């Protein structure tokens, strides 16, 4: 597993807060340098990026007590039935097109209301995290669900390491924007790049996971490699993939699906069988991979995680704040 190997990038590349806000070109310059630097290191060590990590098993992760006691959906379906519009709008498109994505090297920009802004390479971020396997149910807003054994680390822990300021009220996540690597971005289906967000208390909740793998191996590209969010009590579109930027903000971020259709996809997007989507019922869900005559499953409030998360919303009208 990559975090056990000696880090390829020993120096953490960070920019001071002043530099960071003074000039955008500085960011892109430092990013370019970073990319050049990392590729030369790789060549020097005789390893091509594609052979480095592809399909690698992840070792040294613990099993989480937060896991469902259920049999996961077949690997084949988890990795070929994907909503990842950056690679096409059909469910099968991402598994066909995602090979175009270059996930090594990968850097994540940390910015906004944080004490430690900067551009960090993913290796360095991962070195500080404890990986664990969490088996969660993923409920899509399209009324289907699957059970996935994710591997990842606590988002709360990452945010604590970023040292949020007192003004940090929301977390905004951004997916990579590069139409050459993500051909679906050549079409304006959504406004690119994809942006999602959480309220600070949602992000700090122990269930919120930053995932880097599934089924014991590194995250397949079509599932949002190399780093994605998993918020199991919300509809799947909140769980943004291939994250390149995490920004803490004072104000609620503008998120992609909400911007695309405000009345259909709310900022909160908590799984809620009592609140129908304006065009379809959310009371039941199709179980991915189930035999043909399997009845649909009754959708649970907060996707079954109500006991843990209902208190986050205790004074809110969930019909208004859907």
């Amino acid at each position: 597993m990559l975090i056990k190997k000696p880090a390829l990038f020993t120096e953490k590349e960070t920019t001071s807060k002043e530099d960071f806000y003074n000039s955008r070109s500085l960011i892109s310059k430092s990013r370019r340098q970073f990319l050049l630097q990392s590729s030369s290191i790789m060549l020097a060590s005789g390893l091509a990026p594609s052979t480095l990590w592809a399909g690698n098993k992840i070792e040294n992760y613990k099993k989480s007590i937060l896991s469902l006691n259920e049999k996961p959906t077949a690997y084949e379906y988890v990795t070929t039935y994907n909503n990842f519009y950056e690679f096409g709008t059909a469910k099968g498109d991402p598994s066909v097109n995602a090979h175009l994505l270059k996930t090594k090297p990968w850097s994540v920009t940390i910015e906004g209301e944080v004490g430690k802004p900067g551009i960090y390479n993913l290796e360095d971020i991962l070195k500080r995290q404890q990986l664990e396997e969490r088996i969660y149910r993923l409920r899509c807003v399209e009324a289907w669900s699957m059970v996935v054994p994710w591997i990842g680390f606590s988002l709360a822990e990452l945010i604590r390491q970023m040292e949020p300021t007192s003004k940090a009220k929301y977390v905004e996540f951004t997916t990579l924007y590069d139409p050459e690597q993500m051909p679906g971005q050549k079409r304006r289906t959504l406004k690119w790049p994809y942006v999602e967000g959480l309220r600070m208390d949602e992000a700090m909740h122990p269930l919120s996971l930053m995932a880097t793998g599934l089924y014991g191996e590194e995250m397949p590209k079509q599932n949002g490699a190399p780093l994605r969010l998993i918020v199991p009590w919300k509809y799947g579109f909140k769980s943004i993939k291939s994250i390149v930027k995490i920004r803490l903000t004072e104000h609620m971020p503008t998120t992609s699906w909400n911007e695309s259709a405000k009345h259909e996809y709310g900022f909160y997007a908590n799984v809620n069988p009592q609140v129908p989507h304006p065009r379809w019922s959310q009371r039941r869900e199709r179980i991915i991979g189930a035999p043909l005559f399997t009845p649909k499953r009754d959708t649970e409030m907060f996707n079954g995680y109500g006991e843990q998360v209902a208190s986050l919303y205790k004074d809110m009208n969930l019909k208004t704040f859907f």
Partner: protein
Amino acid sequence: MVKKRLSKRQLVILKVTVFAVCLWPFSCIVWDAVNNLLGADPIQTLHFRTGDWALRFILLTLSLSPLKRLLNSPLPLRFSRMFGLFTFFYASVHLLVWLVLDQSLSLDNMIEDVPQSPYIILGLLAYTLLIPLAATSTAAMMRVMGNSWFTLHKLIYLIALMGVIHFFWLTKLDDIEPLIYAFVLFILLAFRWPVIKRIFS
């Protein structure tokens, strides 16, 4: 050149062939269902495949009379009943998939789901309107009904429109497919502009 007249035998052979071709998509769907080849989301796959064919057949049915004009031959109209009934057939399978697999034949489920899902209401309405057309599709009914038969069967324009809107309404974001159906329908309705104008005047 299109031959103006076919012998009775030729016509029978042609009709049997076309009938078999029309059944081909259904055979593929059944084959895939029996052999567990419908993929990760079999109910949804069945919905889409049967719905697609119902829409395609209603558009095919509507293309016959423009085709007759273009080819200057009455031959296409020989297939309007067959294509119309295949529309009804695929729509029926589509409805059956919803009733049996999606709703598990539970009235309680339907009472909850239908009012929350406008596209389902529209689909059910469109199907309801297809029933009298299928029921009056025989030559005998045509004779009995006379002119009112033609009036009744103009409902197909409305049903096709409802079918396309039904598809639009359930689509989450990428409208390309329903747009293609809408475009084809628009062209086919444009051929009937005089008739449509008369209906509304």
